[in-house]
């Protein structure tokens, strides 16, 4: 990826989106025990499957496998930006990374950030989706307001957030100051971290919300009515009937949130904090960009991308193992 001539693709984090085929592959492996339901979907004749997969595989080849190979090959060398001298250094880049307290901080920051962001986003989205059914008047407006942030590019919303919460001039910051809170994301690491989490939740909430609302619409009315007749109140109905039925969607969203938190928050961080103050919001993906494209330390940046990819793969597998067993795809 590091020699890609178009840096914008990297900024979007596009090459690092986990390929859909990985899910299919994993699903096939870990779900193979079950011979019924959606887990075992397959074609009788593999030829047509290959034809149908070809366009996607080609895209993956150019935007994932080739860049991934380039990253791997750069991870074991030290090189000057222009490629004049390249020295093979073995695992040096990785050793330097793991020995660096800054990198270890960045790694734990990313995990905590992704976790906190996922939990808040998913629970808020679930709450709002649950409430959608209860809103009688102005349902369209309610939905519209929630879906609006999704139409705003992360760079734009990051810029707005940065300004609105700027300790010197931002109206929201002023409001916080009037409440007696010493808000200043330029000087207080925790404030900056809160700001990033809030912006990320705001940005991603609607994505989760759309999926959850759609999933809830698919829950059979009869089941809900039966539960209501049995005397279950709305909240209880949600947890005992709706939630188990929408679990596949929930599980899918957990993985999407993980990927969002790890990779797609780049634009927000770049516009709101630039990783500061004192690297307190410099997540792994931001560090990859900073070290590779700003500092031109290509070897280290490539090694970091490899580690990041490994983290994403490991966490996805763990989620499949731990959670998918509790998910029933067959209704």
């Amino acid at each position, binding site marked *: 990826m590091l020699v890609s001539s178009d840096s914008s693709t990297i900024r979007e984090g596009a090459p690092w989106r986990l390929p859909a085929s990985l899910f299919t592959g994993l699903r096939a492996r870990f779900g193979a025990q079950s011979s019924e339901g959606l887990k075992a979907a397959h074609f009788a004749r593999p030829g047509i499957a290959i034809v149908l997969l070809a366009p996607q595989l080609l895209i993956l080849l150019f935007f994932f496998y080739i860049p991934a190979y380039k990253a791997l090959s750069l991870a074991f060398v*030290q090189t*000057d930006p222009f490629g004049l001298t390249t020295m093979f250094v073995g695992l040096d880049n990785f050793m330097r990374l793991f020995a660096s307290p800054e990198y270890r901080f960045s790694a734990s920051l990313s995990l905590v950030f992704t976790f906190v962001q996922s939990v808040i986003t998913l629970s808020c989205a679930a709450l709002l989706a649950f409430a959608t059914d209860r809103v009688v008047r102005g349902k369209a407006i309610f939905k519209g307001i929630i879906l609006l942030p999704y139409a705003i590019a992360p760079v734009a919303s990051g810029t707005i957030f940065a300004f609105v919460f700027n*300790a*010197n001039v931002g109206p929201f910051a002023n409001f916080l100051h009037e409440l007696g809170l010493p808000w200043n994301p330029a000087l207080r690491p925790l404030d900056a971290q809160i700001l990033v989490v809030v912006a990320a939740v705001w940005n991603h909430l609607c994505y989760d919300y759309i999926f959850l609302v759609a999933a809830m619409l698919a829950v059979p009315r009869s089941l809900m009515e039966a539960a209501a007749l049995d005397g279950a109140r709305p909240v209880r109905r949600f947890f005992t009937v709706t939630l188990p039925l929408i679990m596949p969607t929930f599980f899918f969203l957990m993985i999407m949130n993980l990927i969002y938190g790890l990779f797609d928050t780049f634009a927000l961080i770049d516009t709101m904090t630039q990783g500061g103050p004192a690297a307190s919001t410099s997540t792994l993906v931001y560090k990859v960009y900073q070290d590779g494209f700003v500092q*031109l330390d290509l070897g280290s940046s490539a090694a970091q991308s490899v580690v990041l990819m490994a983290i994403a793969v490991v966490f996805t597998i763990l989620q499949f193992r731990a959670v998918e067993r509790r998910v029933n795809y067959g209704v």
Partner: protein
Amino acid sequence: MTVFNKTLAGTALCSVLALAATPAFSQERVHIEWWYALSGRLGDLTQEMIANFNASQDQYEVVGIHKGNYEETMAAMVAAYRVGQQPTLLMAAERGFMTMLNSGAIVPVNQVMAEQGYDTDWGDFIAPVAGFYVVDGEPAALPFNSSTPIFWFNQDQFTAAGFDGPADTWQELDEQLYALKEQGITECPMVLPSDFQWSLLENYSAINDMPFGTSANGFDGLDTEFVYNTTGMVGQVDRLARWVEDGILHLAGEGMSSTQMFVSGNCATVMSSTASHASVEAGAQFDWNATFMPHEEGVEPRNSTIGGGAIWVVAGQDDGEYAAAAAFLDFVASPDNQAWWSEQTGYVPVTTAAYEQMAAEGYFEEHPTREIAILQLSRGEPNENSRGFRFGNHNQTTAILVEEMQAIWTGQKTVQEALDSSVARGNVILRQYEQLHAGQ
């Protein structure tokens, strides 16, 4: 050989000549690309200069492309160079000097000019500019948008506090800034410039004659090591930390720039580039003024160092493109255009000829703040500590320094801890660079 054959050969020769000559007639102009890193008003003026060049002759056409800030432009250059799509001219920041110089991807500007038959007088640069860009007696790049930090202040607020203007020394300035705050004249006596590592640290070190690194700040070799954790810099950083703690020095924060904070009247002073003239002159609604950077008590202040960008000629192009590049550089370096550029932007006129021309026109009498930068730059003879900084991967070591400074302000580290850590981490980067460029 028969007559027929001779005629045939003659015709063939003629047609070959005609073929060779045709492109020169039919092809309109030689196009070359120049990637630059200036935006806003400065970007508009860059385009204007390019348009002026294109209109001044009909052989060459320069196409100016804005590739983002300095870092983004450099990243674009690296990516383009690796696939053979590089531009002919590139603007790179002074911080990227070593990266460009040792990249193997450039042709020294002097060589291009000589090969193309230009007799440009390169000896004419003002001393710190020449001292920085001239390597082994030859300029490696053409200094284009050169600047140096100066001290901007709000005259109204200083007058209200009973001062004529800012003091010359940091010690007296310290008292003045506290007075501005205590008298309730401003909440924000000073705003931290976004490139404070350059204006408040590196230039502080140069002006007060302190070493920043060994081996003459890197001029004498790649074995240089940072030493700023053992010099008077510790005191300076300590002062800045105290100011941040006491609300004397404010951070603009993301979403705002330090210049905006000054121009809007929110903050009374800022120590930033002389290139801020473009926006201060356009925006400030109060009586603003500027002066020299302060110095320590009892120290004879030396020259400040230059920042900003230079134009590099990139390797791997053909002769026609280099002819276009040379014509453009010759145009840019002419005293008339230097003076025009400097008057429009606030950047320093880098040649003595341009400076003298502006002085003769009486420009500095009308705009006294425009002369501060050049007077400050050419104050005394540059020495080892004030000539500038030639550190490999200077961008990287700077980023570390900034991060460690922020760790002081956020209360995570003491001044000495942060500077020690910054020096130690920076030295690792310097060794890495030395290892990679050992043969050069």
